[in-house]
């Protein structure tokens, strides 16, 4: 049964949940909240089973074993964030902001990501796991900060123009969003710093063992360094310049961080790289076919 679950299953569930979220703008419904949670929850279960099956059949139970898995796990983590926020703040419309990012990550995984598992030796390395998990946490934090930043700017604009809250599109308070943004910047900076440094260690170890050495000029290296550099600057800005911790400035910082992340992703999918064992142009587009034993 597990092998029958495809990306389409959970992507469609998330898309329906997003459509239901968008209908908040037009009409009210007593059952929509439950339906939204049911679709997103069903999508998350299918998503989890898909990842679990892939883990068992293609990488011996090791998560983050390919670039494809990495994007899907980032989308999975963001969906968990979405469900958590929606359950605890049912009147607030998080979906129209979070779910497009989730679908975007799933779309990148399906269309562009390399499905070839990382070389087994690398995937098993402790450093490899630290590297992958930290970058994953950093990416989720940047995406969460971006969502919070956009919501903050929408809310600030609404309040500046003195528009009463739309009953369907309730947003959290500016104070809550500003706190989320400030935390997202700090957490993403720390996680990406750990991910980047562990990547350097990993590369040095591989270099010594003469396996899978990644050139320091590889697009992945410099685009990641650029993202990290920006996040360090943004975090420093919020720590040492008090006005940047509140108001719209912190929202602009998180949105800019996301643009750097998008740049890193574009570089990853657009430029040749030998990161993770190199790109396979023949990577299968149908995951279950690959996942089947």
């Amino acid at each position, binding site marked *: 049964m597990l092998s029958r679950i495809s990306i389409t299953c959970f992507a469609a569930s998330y898309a329906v949940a997003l459509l239901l979220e968008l209908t908040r703008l037009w009409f009210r419904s007593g059952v929509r909240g439950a339906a939204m949670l049911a679709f997103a929850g069903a999508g998350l279960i299918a998503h989890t089973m898909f990842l679990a099956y892939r883990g068992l059949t293609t990488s011996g139970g090791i998560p983050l074993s390919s670039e494809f898995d990495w994007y899907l796990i980032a989308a999975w983590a963001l969906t968990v964030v979405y469900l958590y926020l929606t359950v605890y703040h049912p009147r607030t419309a998080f979906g129209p902001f979070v779910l497009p990012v989730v679908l975007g990550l799933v779309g990148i995984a399906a269309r562009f990501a390399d499905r070839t598992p990382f070389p087994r030796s690398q995937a098993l390395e402790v450093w490899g796991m630290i590297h992958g998990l930290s970058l994953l946490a950093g990416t989720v934090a940047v995406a969460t900060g971006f969502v919070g930043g956009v919501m903050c700017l929408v809310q600030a604009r609404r309040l500046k123009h*003195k528009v*009463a*809250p739309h*009953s369907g599109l309730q947003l959290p308070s500016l104070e809550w969003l500003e*706190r989320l943004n400030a935390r997202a910047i700090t957490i993403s900076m720390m996680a990406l710093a750990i991910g980047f440094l562990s990547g350097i260690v990993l590369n040095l170890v591989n270099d010594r063992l003469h396996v899978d050495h990644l050139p320091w000029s590889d697009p992945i290296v410099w685009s990641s360094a650029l993202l990290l550099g920006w996040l360090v600057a943004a975090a420093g800005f919020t720590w040492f310049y008090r006005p940047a911790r509140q108001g719209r400035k912190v929202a602009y910082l998180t949105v800019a961080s996301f643009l750097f992340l998008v740049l890193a992703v574009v570089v990853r999918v657009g430029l040749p790289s030998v990161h993770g064992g190199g790109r396979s142009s023949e990577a299968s587009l149908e995951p279950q076919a690959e996942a089947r034993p």
Partner: protein
Amino acid sequence: MNVQLVGCTHQHASVELRERLAFSVNQATEALAQLRERFPKAEAVLLSTCNRVEVYTAYDEPQAGPTRTDVARFLADFHGLAFHDVFDDLFQCSGEEAIRHLFSVAASLDSMVVGESQISAQVKQAYELAAAQDSVGPLTHQVFQAALRVAKRVASETAINERRVSISSVAVGDFAKNIFERFDDKNILVIGAGEMSEETLRYLKEEGARHVTVVNRNLPRAQELAERWQGRAVAWEELGAALAAADLVVTATGAEEPIVTLADYEQIASKRFQRDLFVLDLAVPRDFDPAIGNCLNVYLYTIEDLRQACERNRQERDRELPRALAIVDQETRQFMAELNHRATAPMIKRLREGWQQVKDDELRRLFNRLPTVDDTLRQEVTQFADRLVNKLLHPPLESLRDEARKGVQHQLLEAFKQLFKLKD
């Protein structure tokens, strides 16, 4: 099963009478005990708010419940008023009408300010108090549970409760709460001392505001207001410093010119580190230079802005009203149908059992007289008797069900009881 309501509301009675008939919690407890004493077979719930005093009673036998006169006498006696001062202003309704009224009340459709959210909590408290006093029974339990469910449904399926229509409630509920997550750590600055400032302060206090600073040209007046709201008063000369420390400003002075100009604000802006500032300028003419509203992280609202927001909310609320009324109507009809079905179900059961008994007795007698009849024939005869009973019962039972659906089955029930000698 009967439900009856006797009471007075803002639509029928003057505020003076409502005030005289109102019950405190202790009085309501005592009143429920007295009602039980006077009408031991009736269930009772007493709903008393500033807009209404309503006595809901439910009973099985019509003579077991109080009449409008009984309730008027009870209310008059309890509050030491003359019977005739009370009687004329009381209204009465029963059955479906009473249920519909309670559902409308709980959903805040009968309130003075339609959509105000406190009433459903007050209905719940009234029901809980009656339950604690043992004066509710199966029927009032069903009715009040249903009323609270209807209130929730109206609140979730319409925006009627979300649309605030007073200046202060819009300022705090629609705008301040969208800027600040909490108010207990915010500095509230009140400039001047007007009625509307106090009203806004009341809403802010309800949201947890603790740090209130009052500035007034007249320091004793500032001190008086500060004392009333557990705040502190500062001299007029310290306005700049107070503004630098403030998160939310409520201003309503009678000044002819703005008391805070853009230049004044720019002087203190650097001390604020671009912290969010919400300014409610309730004064006419305005106390804050409108240009301050363009400064980064400043949200400046004038009374005109708030009035427009109130008007928009009022229009939206009016648009929601038909939907809310439709929900109440649908729920009332459904509730009555269920109630009537429940009332007829025991009757149908007794009738079936009675006829079944006759059939069984006759079959037994027949088979005793025909001992040679084989099993196949026995089965045929038994099935014939079953079919006959079912077919004979079908038309009267169907009529009873139809009447139950329409909700007017009392006479028919009585007729059934007499025709078929059915006992309760």
